[in-house]
C-alpha cells in the first residue's frame, strides 16, 4: 500500500513553481495521479488553467514529455501520440514501455472535448484520461459548464433577480464514459488521496482506455478560503454529491460509503459563495430540491453497486 512518505519522496513530474492559484485542486490531481507510477509517461493537456499555468514560455513545470494542442482535442492528440508509439515500437524504432495520459478540465472534457474523448475511448487507445472537475470554465473567468452544479452562480449563470444561478443539473460524464464500456472508469477526490492513487495505478496498468473523474475544488470560482480545498472535496464526498466509485467491466463498485456520517448537501453549499443566494428566503426551496436529487442519485448508485449491475 502506498504511503504519503513514499509519494513525497518521488521526483515530481509536475514541478513546483507553476502559476496555478493557491489552493487549486488541479495541481494536486496531477501530482497524485502521476505519483502512482514509475513507468515513463507522456501527457496531453487540454487548454485550460492547468496548461496555461504550467507552461508559461520559456518555462515549463513538466518533467515529463508534454503536449498541448487545443481546448477540445486532448483525447485525439494523445490518440496520435499513442498511435505513433505503437507504430514506432512495431517497426523497432523505439524500445521500452511508456504510459499515456490526458488531462482536461470539465470544460475540455464534459463539453467541447466530449466528441474527441468519445472517439478515443471507442477506438480503444491505451491511455488514461483524467478530468479535473472544478465545475466551470475557470480559466476564462468562471463561466458555467455542463459540469456546473444546479443553482451555482457563475459569470454566465449569475444569481439574478429572476433566475437564481444555473437552472440545469450537472451532466453525469462518468456514467456517459462508462456507457462506452471501456475497461476502467472511476470517480475520485483530491481529499481521498490514497483512493485516487490506487485508482490511478489501476487505470495506468489497465490495457486500453481508462477514465478518472476527480473533483478539484477551485477557490477562485467557488469562492472560499484557499486553505479549505481538501476540506470541501472531502465534504463533497461525505454529502454524496460526489460519490467515489469504480466501474470495471460494466460493474459499479462503491469505493466509499459515509454511512451514518453522511452529511446534508446544504452544509457543503453554504461554505461556497457561488451558492450564497440559495440561502436567501425566496430560494431556500431549492436546497430541498438539490438534496432530493443528490439522494436519488446516491441511492441509485448504492443499488447498482450492491447488485453489481447497471440499472
Amino acid at each position, binding site marked *: 500500500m502506498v504511503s504519503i512518505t513514499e509519494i513525497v519522496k518521488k521526483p515530481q513530474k509536475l514541478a513546483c513553481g507553476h502559476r496555478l492559484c493557491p489552493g487549486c485542486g488541479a495541481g494536486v490531481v496531477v501530482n497524485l495521479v502521476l505519483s502512482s507510477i514509475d513507468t*515513463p509517461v*507522456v501527457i*496531453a493537456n487540454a487548454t485550460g488553467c492547468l*496548461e*496555461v499555468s504550467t*507552461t*508559461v*514560455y*520559456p518555462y*515549463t513545470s*513538466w*518533467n*515529463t*514529455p*508534454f*503536449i*498541448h*494542442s*487545443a481546448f*477540445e*482535442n486532448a483525447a*485525439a*492528440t*494523445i*490518440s*496520435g*501520440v*499513442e*498511435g*505513433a*508509439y*505503437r*507504430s*514506432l515500437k*512495431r*517497426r523497432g524504432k*523505439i524500445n*521500452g514501455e*511508456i504510459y499515456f495520459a490526458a488531462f482536461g478540465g470539465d470544460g475540455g472534457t464534459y463539453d467541447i472535448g466530449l*466528441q*474527441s474523448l*468519445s*472517439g*478515443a475511448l*471507442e*477506438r480503444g487507445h491505451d491511455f488514461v484520461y483524467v478530468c479535473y472537475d472544478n465545475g466551470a470554465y475557470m480559466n476564462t473567468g468562471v463561466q458555467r459548464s455542463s459540469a456546473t452544479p444546479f443553482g451555482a452562480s457563475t459569470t454566465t449563470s449569475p444569481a439574478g433577480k429572476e433566475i437564481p444561478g444555473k437552472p440545469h443539473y450537472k451532466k453525469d460524464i462518468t456514467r456517459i464514459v462508462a456507457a462506452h464500456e471501456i475497461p476502467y472508469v472511476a470517480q475520485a477526490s483530491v481529499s481521498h488521496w490514497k483512493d485516487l492513487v490506487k485508482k490511478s495505478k489501476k487505470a495506468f496498468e489497465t490495457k486500453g482506455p481508462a477514465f478518472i473523474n476527480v473533483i478539484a475544488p477551485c477557490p477562485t470560482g467557488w469562492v472560499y478560503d484557499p486553505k479549505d480545498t481538501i476540506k470541501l472535496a472531502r465534504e463533497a464526498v461525505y454529502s454524496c454529491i460526489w460519490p467515489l466509485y469504480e466501474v470495471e467491466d460494466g460493474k459499479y463498485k462503491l469505493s466509499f460509503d459515509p454511512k451514518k456520517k453522511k452529511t446534508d448537501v446544504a452544509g457543503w453549499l453554504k461554505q461556497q459563495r457561488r451558492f450564497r443566494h440559495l440561502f436567501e428566503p425566496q430560494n431556500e426551496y431549492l436546497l430541498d430540491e438539490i438534496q432530493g436529487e443528490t439522494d436519488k442519485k446516491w441511492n441509485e448508485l448504492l443499488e447498482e453497486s450492491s447488485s453489481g449491475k447497471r440499472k
Partner: protein
Amino acid sequence: MSKVALLGNATIAEAMRQINPDVVAAFPITPATGIVQEFSQYVHDGVLDTEFITVESEHSAMSACIGASAAGARVMTATSSAGLALMWELLGVASGLRLPMVMVVANRALSSPINIGCDHSDSMGARDSGWIQLYSENAQEGYDNVIKAVRISENKDVRLPVMVMIDGFITSHCTEVLESLEDDQVRGFAGEYKTDYSLLNIENPLTYGPYQTSEYYFETKKQEADSIKDSFGIIKKVSEEFETLSGRHQSIVESYMMEDAEVAVMVLSSTAGTTRAVVDSLRSEGIKAGLIKPRLFRPFPAEKIIEITKNLKSLAILDRSEAFSASGGPLFTETRSALYESGSKPNIINYIYGLGGRDICMEDIRKVFLELLEEEGKRPEVIIRHLGVRK
C-alpha cells in the same frame, strides 16, 4: 518505372503505400474518401503496418496527426472541403508547432449551399495557415508532389506541414496513366524520418505547445515566416533531386510557350491542362499565347512570376474560388501585388470560374484569350469577371 491506369485517388493511395508512413489518421469525405479507403485496404490486407487511426472527425484527424508527428512519426492524412474547414484551428497548431506532415486535399467547394463539386475555396481558405501548398494538374503530379512533400516537410530547415492539392472529381475520380516509381526508389528518396524533437524521448522531456505572451509570440511567428520564406530553396532542391530520379522536370511555376507570349492565362491545377490545349490551338492560328501554372502557392513564388511575365502585354488570372473580397480571387490579388515590383505591368484581368464543379471547357478559355486580345492596350473597365456564370 511502370505504367498503370488508376483512379486519381488510388494514385495518391499508391504514393502513400510506397512511402509507408508510420501513422495515418483520417476521416472519409467526398471526394477524398477513395484515398482513405484504398489506404485502409492496404492496412487490413497486411500490405502495410502503418498505424491507421480511424478518427471520428477531421478535427480529430488533424489532432491525432499533430500528436503523432510530435511523437516523431512520419504522418499523412487526406481530406476535402468541410473536412479541411473543420481542421482549420489545428492547421495553425500543426504549422506553429513546426510539425512535419503531408495532407492531400481533393479540392471541393465549401457550404453553403452544400456542393460536392470541385473548386479551390477549401484550400484557399487555408492559405494563410502556415502550410506549404502544392497544386497538382493531374494525378501524376499529385503522386509526384506527395513524394516530394515528405522530403520538403521533414527538412530540418523547413519543419512545416505540406498540403498537396488535386482537383476533386476531375482528378480524384478520373482514370489516368500513372508512371510510378519502384517502391525502393520512393522509399530511398523519402529516406528515414529522424527527429530530435520526439515526445517519446523520455530522457529529454519536451513541452510542446506552451503559452507564449506578447514577450515571445511575435518572435516565434517571425521564425515561422522566415522558414516558409527560406523553403523556396529546399523545394527547388527536392524537385531537382526528384527530376534525377523520375526524369520529370517540375519547376515551382511552369511556363508554357511564355518565351515570346504576348497574352497569357495563369491558372492552378487541372484547368492548366485545358489551357495548354487552347494555347496550342491559338499558336497554330499565329496568336502568341502562353500558360503560367504555379505548382506552388505557399510560399508564393512572386519572383518567378515577375520573371515569367516581364514581356507580357495582357494576363488573365483564373481563380477557382470567390474570396468575397470585392477585389478579386487569391491568385489574382497575390499576383497583382507581386507585379507591383515588376518593371513591366501587363493588363491583368481576374476571372472567377468553375465554382461548385461548374465545367470549364476549351471554348471558355479561348473566350478569355480573345477578350485579352480585344482589350489589349486599353484600360479594362471591369477587371474582376465571372466566367461561365448565368446572368
